[in-house]
């Protein structure tokens, strides 16, 4: 599938999709979006790139293999509940430090523990989709 049109498009839209997915993730607490949707959008970006340039190459762009993203995501989500335990509250209770970081696209960002939980969801969904992709496109002939 050697389409110049697709390749040019993918070169532009794939990075945009990743950025968009991060915006969706960060604004998720107040507007439609969130980790699940963000992770799907990000994975879709990688897939689009894969259609244009080959999935193997697309997966090589990632800093880590997909299975590691799943692990990171699950660990992040699981550990985001620990601060609440330390504060003497039930596991996974949201804690919100009195901080507000201005972001230019997703409004003001408050770095509470649910944000890290959402980030964990993002990574594990991202990793899951890409792992399935990797599994179903892996060719015996290619290295």
């Amino acid at each position, binding site marked *: 599938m050697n389409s110049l049109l697709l390749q040019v498009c993918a070169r532009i839209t794939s990075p945009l999709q990743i950025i968009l997915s991060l915006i969706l993730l960060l604004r998720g*607490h107040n507007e439609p979006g969130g980790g699940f949707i963000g992770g799907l959008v990000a994975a*879709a970006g990688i897939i689009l790139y894969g259609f244009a340039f080959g999935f*193997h190459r697309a997966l090589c762009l990632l800093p880590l293999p997909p299975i590691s993203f799943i*692990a990171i995501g699950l660990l992040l989500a699981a550990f985001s509940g620990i601060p609440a335990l330390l504060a003497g509250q039930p596991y996974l209770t949201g804690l919100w430090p009195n901080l507000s970081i201005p972001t230019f696209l997703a409004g003001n960002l408050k770095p509470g523990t649910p944000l890290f*939980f959402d980030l964990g969801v993002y990574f594990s969904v991202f990793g899951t989709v890409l792992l399935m992709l990797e599994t179903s496109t892996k060719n015996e002939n290619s290295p």
Partner: protein
Amino acid sequence: MAASLFIVFLASAISPLLVYFLRTRASYFLALVPLSIFVLYLHYLQRLHDGSPLLETIHWIQSFGVHLQFRLDGLALLFLLLIAGIGTLIVLYAGSYLAGHPHLGRFYAILFLFMGAMLGLVASENLIALFVFWELTSLSSYLLVGFDYRKKEARAAALQALLVTFTGGQALLVAFLILASLTDSFSFTQILEKKIQIQQNPSYIILVLLVLTGAFTKSAQTPFHFWLPGAMAAPTPVSAYLHSATMVTAGVFLLARLTPLLGGTHLWAWSLTSFGLLTMLTGSILAIGQTDLKRLLAYTTVAALGTMTMLLGLGTPLAAKAAIAFLLVHSLYKGALFMVAGAVDHETHTRDVRDLGGLIRHMPITAIASGLAALAMCGVPPVLGFISKELIYEAKLEFGQIGWFFAILGVIANALVVAVALIVGIRPFLGFPLHTPKHPHEAPFPLWFGPLILALLGLLFGIVPPLVEQTIIKPAVVAVVGDTIKVKLSLWHGFTPMLVLSFVTLLLGFCFFRMREKFRLARETLTPLRYYGPESLYSCIINHWLPSIASLQTRILQHGYLRYYVLSIIAAAALAVAAGLSRISLPGTWFTWRSFEWWEVLLCAAIFLAGFAAILTSGRITSVVLLGIIGYTISLIFALYGAPDLALTQFLVETLTLILLVLVLYRLPKAKSLSSKASRLRDALLSLAFGFAITLLVLKSLYIPHDTKLPDFFVQNSPIAQGRNVVNVILVDFRALDTLGEITVLGISAVGVWAVLSFIRKKSSSASASQKNSSPASFEQ
């Protein structure tokens, strides 16, 4: 109590590290753990004098009434002291016995796990906590018996012990649930208050049978006695600790604990007495013909457990006193003798009593320990064993004629035990030295220290009974009998029938000892009878019935046809929905037509057309794309009705599913029509039924007045959770634990698919290296 449990479990966790750094010396540090617990509970003994149990509660699962609730009464304290005290000696002993063993750290980890489970078990006040600890002892015993996991017989014995004790554990759980349903409480103290109500309930019989199954499997009562000698495959420290002094007495503990609640009826008395007597005879008769040191001891343990059960069945205060005294005595001498057997094995590399003789010259200290323990086992004055044997006979003789019958059976069994004591504890050390695989030397200090201490304690308690009678035995008896009684132990009772019986026992025992060769021959000729024993029933179940039932149900349920799996899932779902709907009654006007918007008609038409086209098309990818159209249309509906998050998610999931499906389907060969008309008709009917059920469900759910408590709560409280998007706040905050579970499932299923497919790929690529590239071209460039 909770603190000491925590320390023991902590020791279990860090012991591998400690062994890694300190090697065998770690045992000295680890022995401090049970030692400190032992000292702690010695102090508790003084606080128990007023007789009321000490309670301690840590809330665990409050909504179910399950708590870590501890009850320190006399019975619990006796067991705690035995577990921690003998545990200290065993930890020391194991360090020397398994010195240099590559898995010593693992051994200690499991041993401490067991110790913690046992401590928790005997101190539990809450029945569920008791059950958890009960199963934990079975589990850790399984790991310890199978410690030498490279040996096939060790694995088989471990599995046997596990299955037998777990069977009892399940029965016990059911019994506890019945108790809780009768009394609305899992707390033993509260259940005890409703004793009469329980005993008059018709389910009392079932309750007793279940409890007895639990206790009898754990304490190796006939017909479950066979697992205990098998468990001797464990390293000797384990046999000494679990299978003589502690774990097997857990069943006796349970019976003693529940006697105030369930006891006092004919059913309880007769079943305990008869099974106890039967076990006592079985154990002692099977013991005498053995030649392996550990098996000899194992069968006498069975006999001793039978004696305890029988005494608890008799139910009189005197019998309870005898049972408790005998429990103490037995733990001391049996632990000592097992450790001696291990030391002998360690020094001579043989456990066959026919090869052992004259060891006293090489191992004098071990010989002293062994001799004293054997005297306790025989019941020779002035050892505590003598006092307990007198008590046992006295308790039996209280019952008149039938008591004499029990006593005579007891004399026979005890005489056999005496003979075994002579064979195991005395004979190997006397006579001419025989040639052994290894030239014996005195065992290292930890190997003789434990048995010597235990044996000397037996002697000391015998000479000075007041050391134990008021402090340890009386509170325990009070806990079993339920009210205060007088406990007085003494060596000399005057010329009584009991003294005569004791004397006859010893005499007869000596005769049996002289006849030991005949018993061994008899055992060999009678070996074919094993075929009719309970063990062959066990192996028949494990090797024949279980596999055939398993393969039968696998053939029915796990046939391996994807289409039938889907079929059964859909059929079951449709049935479940239909059954659920039929129970909901709605007012007659639950369904009304209303006018449509033009775009609603358009969307519905799109769904219908795509659906029909998907059915009729023969191309796989076409049908997937058509199904995708349905999904997109539905996400449009979500968007139109004000659920943007849902719409967005549905849209993305639909897209990615489509891509993944296409990537997979692309590799499959062209679709062919293989199914028959009849099966198509069946599928069509099922699909229609399923669709109809779901439609009905959706329609009806619109008209059921639904509870607005939950939505209101979420809307009101989402500002507290610092978010305006309620959907996302529910996902990452209110229901974060659910989400965590969901993403875990998601991740695991992806990893599962990945693992299965890479496995298949590896297999097929190695199987057909020449026929590579049989699949169509991939998307790779």
